[in-house]
């Protein structure tokens, strides 16, 4: 009885709250939109049509309208492709490179985190390697791999692998003594310990690493593509610069920003699903 009435009350509350839910969402959405509008107006005032230098928002929309804004999927062959296709090419590179950095970063991180000797031996090295800027790897990887595509994958990989590796290591080192005691008293097999204790316990740390890693990958690929050329949003920006087409650059930057944000949200979302699901 008691539980069924309390459920009823909760239901009614939820319905009663649906208006306030919309209101609270509006409160979240309206201010940033308003801020954006204000900024666009200021920008437009500072950069009126006909002025030199940076175009204003209206000129950008006019200049890039056809085909870059209205048709993200056009394909005229070569590098002349819509922005969605350019972005997709960059994303594919990121996904391939990032995939390898997950495999290597999580794998090595677990190994290093569970073995103090290996940790002491390798940690200083990793602390140095991880500070090398992504693009500094590019000449080396171009020379060694002799292939633009492979070099791009490598730059993504080497950029994203450090935060994943380092966070995984910490996650494994931070496994609470309580759980290790459970392992010891039950004499759990290594396999059971790995899947039932080590991985679930380190998962939040691993996802922190993944989130930093995907952000860095996106930073790196844009810069790397400027240098290696081909289809991809990075080279598109560089190419537009060479053609003195600022409208296109700014539209492309907008895309880059939004996609970077979505990538971050995606990892955050997957992480919160997996990790929260675990600990409910």
């Amino acid at each position, binding site marked *: 009885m008691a539980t069924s009435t309390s459920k009823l009350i909760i239901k009614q509350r939820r319905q009663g709250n649906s208006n306030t839910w919309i209101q609270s969402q509006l409160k979240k959405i309206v201010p940033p939109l308003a801020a954006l509008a204000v900024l666009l107006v200021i920008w437009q005032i500072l950069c009126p049509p006909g002025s030199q230098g940076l175009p204003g928002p209206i000129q950008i929309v006019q200049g890039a309208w056809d085909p870059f804004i209205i048709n993200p999927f056009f394909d005229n062959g070569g590098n002349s492709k819509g922005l969605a296709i350019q972005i997709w090419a960059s994303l594919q590179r990121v996904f391939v490179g990032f995939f390898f950095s997950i495999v290597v970063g999580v794998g090595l991180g677990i190994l290093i985190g569970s073995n103090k000797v290996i940790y002491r031996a390798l940690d200083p090295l990793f602390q140095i390697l991880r500070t090398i800027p992504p693009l500094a790897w590019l000449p080396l990887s171009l020379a060694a791999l002799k292939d633009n595509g492979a070099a791009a994958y490598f730059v993504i990989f080497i950029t994203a692998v450090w935060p994943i590796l380092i966070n995984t290591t910490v996650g494994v080192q931070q496994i609470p003594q*309580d*759980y290790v*005691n*459970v392992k*010891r*008293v*039950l*004499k*759990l*097999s290594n396999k*059971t310990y790995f899947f*039932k*204790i080590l991985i*679930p316990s380190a998962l939040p740390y691993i996802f922190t690493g993944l989130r930093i890693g995907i952000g860095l990958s996106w930073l790196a690929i844009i810069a790397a593509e400027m240098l290696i050329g081909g289809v991809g949003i990075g080279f598109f920006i560089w190419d537009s610069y060479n053609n003195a087409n600022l409208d296109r650059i700014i539209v492309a930057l907008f895309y880059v920003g939004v996609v970077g944000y979505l990538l971050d949200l995606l990892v955050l979302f997957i992480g919160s699903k997996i990790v929260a699901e*675990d*600990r*409910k």
Partner: protein
Amino acid sequence: MSFLTIDRVTKVYPTANGPATILDGIDLSVNEGEFICLIGHSGCGKSTLLNMVSGFNTPTSGTVTLQGNQIIEPGPDRMMVFQNYCLLPWLTAYDNVYLAVDSVYPAHTEAQKKAIVREHLEMVGLTESASKKPGQLSGGMKQRVAIARALAIKPQVLILDEPFGALDAITKEELQDELLTIWTEHKVTVLMITHDIDEALYLADRLVMMTNGPAAKIGEVLDIPFDRPRDREEIMASNTYIELRNYALDFLFNRYAHLDD
């Protein structure tokens, strides 16, 4: 030779101010199936002592032997119920118990293992919450899961470190009764640390009272003579109970009064 023997056990920790003797010559023999409670002031070394039975800690000198075998490492024959439960938060109550059963009985069939898990969850009254994760369980329910997990693997010795310290009075009494029922059925040997004299008098066959640290010893061992099954009200009303209780209180608060108290 008794079932479990603690023989001249000392524990010395190296500290910044030189070696600190925590336990100094502990001797105790426990019979099979006995229910022992351990009481003493905070920091005297109770956990240290029982951790040497569970194998998480090792004596600096002396030995702990179970059925003639010296204890050197933890094992499922001496299962712990930890004070903070030590359940895995990402596994359901059922899976927490299953993990233990699966690991300790690798030769059992799937059906046998499942039956053992269900039987023990039912024993602690958790059948309906079996699919909940520890985060969704109350403190008392978590402790029940921990007890079910410990008993499901049929240990020879069950070690409980202040198992009910964090629970409210009613839940505590319920769990004490459940523990007694289970102990009677399983005939397991129990070593339990408690700070609650009434709890010790209700549960134990013998009450081991430790002196204060540093260099704590076993001060006295009280036999608790009440017949079993025990009735809480009945024994509490008896003169023996009051005598034993006063004796233990006098030991703790007069003869070995804690300086901080």
